[in-house]
């Protein structure tokens, strides 16, 4: 495999983006930030890939106008996934592995606030026997949370502790929507929203966008003092059928992890939109307390749909680039109750796979 590294990262998160669902206006300054970080222009990018959703925007082909932010005449080598942009980054990483290109820019965007998000996401379920009941995404997560609670794998206090930890860590994250010091007791005094989940157990509805530049070998070294080298990149899905799935587990996480070397990971950014899912992911990944989980505050501090997974990769990479970590893990999820999962391991030292 070629050595490929994250060399640029930019993000925006907000509770409401007052602009078009194509989010072109938000992407333009993001790209400008990346050109500043790398010293590159669009001509240096060999491949572009984005992640977004028509249903989030409420119209077909929502990604089509987003390419205007690139400036696509002359034309560009470009693709799009209807997934979180963490998977767009995977497609770009694969593209670089083919040897066809050396650098790629990947972006994700989504205006979650345009509709009623938890209801819109009911359209991800089986359209014959589930969507007609409109099981909202919070309810599905709550079914999962209770299974773990009643099996004794976590307690309500554990969930509150995850939230308190997120809020506290997020005070250092200028992009976080929710941050500040709180306590388990205070959190447990809040009313239930979707019993056993309280509102603070659920990621806030967040608008936003993020973009990452990755590059191979010397191209990466030329623009970044300490590139975050991707040493492992795996993703898996579980089946969705809620009758067949053991909702309390996410075997696709363990499956992806089985192909990776997670020993020595200092920092893990986990895409857990619900507090109990951080605990579930820790279990599936076998992360012990020595790993700093979600130092950015994680999705509970801000969860812009279709870029929050990419943001986990960007946040984790940032720890390599600023020298605070030597090896990091980023996780992204998609679908109801952690159905689909992606893991990206990055390190300050490349594997020596060459350019």
């Amino acid at each position, binding site marked *: *495999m*070629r050595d490929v590294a994250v060399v640029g990262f930019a993000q925006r998160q907000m509770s409401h983006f007052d602009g078009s669902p194509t989010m072109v206006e938000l992407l333009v300054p993001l790209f400008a930030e990346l050109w500043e970080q790398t010293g590159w222009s669009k001509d240096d990018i060999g491949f*572009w890939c984005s992640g977004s*959703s*028509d*249903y989030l925007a*409420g*119209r*077909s*082909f929502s*990604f*089509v*106008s987003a*390419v*205007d932010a690139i400036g*696509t*005449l*002359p*034309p*560009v*080598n*470009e*693709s*799009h*996934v*209807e*997934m979180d942009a963490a*998977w767009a980054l*995977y*497609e770009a990483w*694969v*593209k670089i*592995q*083919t*040897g066809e290109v050396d650098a790629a820019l990947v972006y994700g965007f989504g205006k979650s606030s345009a509709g009623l998000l938890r209801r*819109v*996401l009911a*359209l*991800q*379920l089986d*359209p*014959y026997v589930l*969507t007609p009941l409109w099981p909202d995404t919070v309810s599905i997560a709550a079914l999962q949370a209770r299974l773990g609670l009643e099996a004794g794998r976590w307690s309500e206090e554990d969930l509150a502790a995850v939230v308190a930890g997120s809020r506290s860590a997020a005070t250092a994250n200028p992009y976080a929507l929710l941050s500040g010091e709180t306590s388990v007791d205070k959190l447990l005094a809040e009313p239930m929203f979707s019993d056993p989940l309280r509102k603070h157990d659920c990621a806030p509805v967040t608008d936003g966008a993020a973009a990452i530049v990755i590059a191979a070998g010397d191209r990466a070294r030329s623009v970044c003092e300490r590139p975050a080298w991707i040493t492992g990149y*795996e*993703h*898996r*899905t*579980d*089946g*969705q*059928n809620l009758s*067949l799935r053991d909702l309390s587990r996410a*075997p*696709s996480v363990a*499956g992806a992890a089985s192909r990776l070397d997670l020993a020595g990971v200092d920092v893990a950014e986990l895409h857990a939109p619900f507090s109990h899912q951080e605990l579930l992911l820790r279990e599936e990944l076998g992360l012990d307390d020595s790993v700093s989980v979600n130092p950015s505050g994680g999705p509970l501090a801000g969860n812009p749909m279709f870029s929050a997974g990419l943001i986990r990769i960007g946040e984790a990479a940032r720890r390599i680039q600023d020298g605070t970590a030597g090896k990091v893990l980023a996780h992204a999820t*998609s*679908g*109801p109750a952690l*159905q*689909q999962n992606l893991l990206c391991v990055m390190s300050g030292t490349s594997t020596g796979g060459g350019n």
Partner: protein
Amino acid sequence: MGKQLAAVVGVGQTHYRAKREDVSMPGLLREAVDRAMADANVGFDDLDAIVVGKAPDLFEGVMMPELFLSDALGAAGKPLLRVHTAGSVGGSTANVAASLVQSGVHRRVLAVAFEKQSESNAMWALSIPVPFIMPVHAGAGGYFAPHVRSYIRRSGAPVHIGAMVAAKDRQNALKNEYAHLRNPDTTFESVMASQMLWDPIRYDETCPSSDGACAVVIADEDTAAASPNPAWIHGTVMRTEPTTAAERDQVNPQAGREAAAAIYKQAGITDPLTEIDCAEIYVPFSWFEPMWLENLGFAAEGSGWKLTESGATALDGELPVNMSGGVLSSNPIGASGMIRFAEAALQVRGAAGEHQVPDARRALGHAYGGGSQFFAMWIVGADRPA
């Protein structure tokens, strides 16, 4: 490690129909997938990853349907990707699957693209009114018809060229058991006599709305070498430009021209008209055949229609185009691009049945989408790339 060789070792298609009311969405996909896997002689356990493509989710009213389809596709425990690049998506999906093998990441990848348009109404899904904006008073055909008029004006093409293309593709479809429109009475005269819908486009010069799925199995060099008739991938390309831009050439888009130049370079082709044996090109409205012949470099600008008029694009012509009957005969939108790519593979594998071009050694599969702005192509060959 460098770029690895990859080849198509299995192709599967559903029968394309206006309404496949006999199957669910999972059933529709499995029909194509099971045929592709049988063709490739692989089972689910042999597949390393699955790539799903389809056009807008609003067509079926399911957000990211690959999530619920993962059960029927045997995707649990595997990597699953979902591509959406507008009308070119079927082609892009195949290209992404190819890149998974060419990168050395996987050995055998299933790509499947589908649309079940009968679940809703494509015209509705594509023209949901955007507030403040002028409603599109013309539907999908109305978007492209003005550009066809521009082409006719720019090239001086005689007005009957479109009907020639439509009659040819519909006649080709009679030889394709999977095609949606199979009417032996469709002739040049009947097309000319059909209603002018979006003047200058007649009813019989437009694509149908279909249900259907198409799947391909793409494999690495070792697997392909064991296959009796692999279609080796000689090149893949994708290019994008804006939907609208000042003085953008919508008749002969730059992205299409540059994509063609790039893929010919990859495949070592200098004269596409003589070096490519047949081409399956995304032609949803008949006039796009001469337009794309120029865009793809098979003819000089302004003279694509002459190639069509000469009969060169007929099944027995110098460059057979749309041997399967093309998009004009079957159009499950999200799958339409992959059907083009699959037909190219079938041709060089010598597996195209009645619509086989004798001794086709190298074929082009082409797809486009959006406002003639997303292009995806591949070139496949009977011979291992040099």
